[in-house]
């Protein structure tokens, strides 16, 4: 008798999409430091690998590692792009840059993976932020065993934690960060009743996405301001 487990063929379970199109091609993103070994296990383990995009610093040892990874990819016949990232930028700037690249590949219909093991702390943390916000499966590679370890990330957009209306309000505030809006002015600008706006603002405040601050020129007025970093949440 054949058990259910032994009858199981993993290849038939790789895609939840239409079967006649076949599984989508994979684009592997990665961060690279001085050791190519932190990225190579993910290149070896990716199925249907179409392309590798990795970020590295301008340090000489990182450039040496880049050359080795590029050579490895070429020997496998896999397209590869290396992006040099300077630590002169801040975390959100680097995350924004990586996110733009990720979205471009996703729009092309590719399956995405991210290895965040290598690179500087800034680069790796920026990559992790992008994976959390975009819901990209991510792994890191153990420093000594070089074993790939998957991170507990779901394939859902983190921004889904906001309702569409909350998103609209936050988006408006972020785009008009330099201006001051009271709840009443916000309600007028977005064409909703002020009681409705009060509800949205309270919900956003509870989530730490906005703050209500006293107007320095008129203590009776409360100005609604988006919290720092919310640009990245909205993408």
């Amino acid at each position: 008798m054949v058990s259910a487990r032994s009858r199981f063929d993993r290849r038939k379970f790789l895609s939840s999409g239409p079967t006649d199109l076949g599984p989508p091609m994979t684009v592997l993103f990665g961060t690279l430091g001085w050791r190519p070994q932190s990225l190579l296990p993910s290149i070896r383990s990716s199925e249907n690998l179409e392309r590798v995009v990795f970020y590295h610093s301008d340090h000489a040892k990182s450039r040496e590692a880049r050359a080795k990874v590029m050579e490895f990819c070429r020997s496998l016949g896999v397209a590869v792009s290396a992006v040099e990232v300077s630590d002169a930028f801040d975390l959100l700037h680097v995350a924004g840059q990586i996110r733009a690249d990720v979205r471009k590949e996703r729009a092309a219909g590719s399956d995405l993976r991210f290895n965040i093991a290598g690179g500087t702390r800034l680069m790796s943390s920026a990559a992790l932020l992008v994976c959390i916000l975009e819901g990209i499966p991510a792994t890191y590679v153990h420093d000594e065993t070089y074993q790939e370890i998957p991170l507990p990330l779901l394939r859902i957009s983190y921004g889904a934690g906001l309702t569409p209306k909350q998103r609209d309000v936050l988006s408006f505030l972020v785009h008009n960060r330099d201006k001051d809006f009271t709840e009443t002015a916000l309600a007028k600008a977005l064409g909703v009743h002020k009681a409705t706006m009060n509800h949205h603002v309270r919900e956003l405040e509870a989530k730490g996405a906005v703050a209500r601050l006293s107007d320095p020129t008129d203590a009776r007025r409360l100005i609604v301001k988006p919290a720092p970093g919310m640009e990245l949440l909205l993408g």
Partner: protein
Amino acid sequence: MAHRTLIATMGFDERHVLPSLRLLPYDRLVLVAGRETVRSAGFRRLRALEPALRTVRVDPFDLMGSMESIRETIRSAAKDGSVRISASGGTKILTNAAILAAFQEGVEAWYCDPDPVRLPVLQGVVLDAVFSPAERGIARALHGPMTHDRLVSGVASQGFARRTVLGALQSLVGKGLVEIGRDGGSVWVRPSPRFALFRDHLRRVPKKG
């Protein structure tokens, strides 16, 4: 009385922690650090400044273990008041563990190296709340590959409408936790390799309110 707890990751150099101590007001300070860090001169200097600080020891090269320790620390501190995370000290792995824990537990997080950057965490939005009761029902029933029909009828017998179970199943597929495929004339469902990482979240019953 509610306390403000600051949980900060730390390596050998306390200067990565000091900006967050200046920027983020706190009543209680918890340092998450490796064994070697706790023996370091930087840690002793910091303890001289903050004699009441609490230490959570972790293996700073074990991302998952560090993340679980930080999550436990957050949950424990959240019972007494607000919690903030500073993720700029320690190894890269420890920083990433703190970032993951902050997003999973929905607590304010900062990265100060050297300028303060607030991470876009939605406070109170916890990972456990992402799963519906029907998704939890599926997780309880799914221990290995099962036929689609058997799984759906099994979960439906827990009191869920069949349509709800089918919707929950598709939602778990979308989240990357379950895979559906055809084999030997039957439709089969099985947990994805990632499913095990979320088993605890799926089994936990979220608090109301």
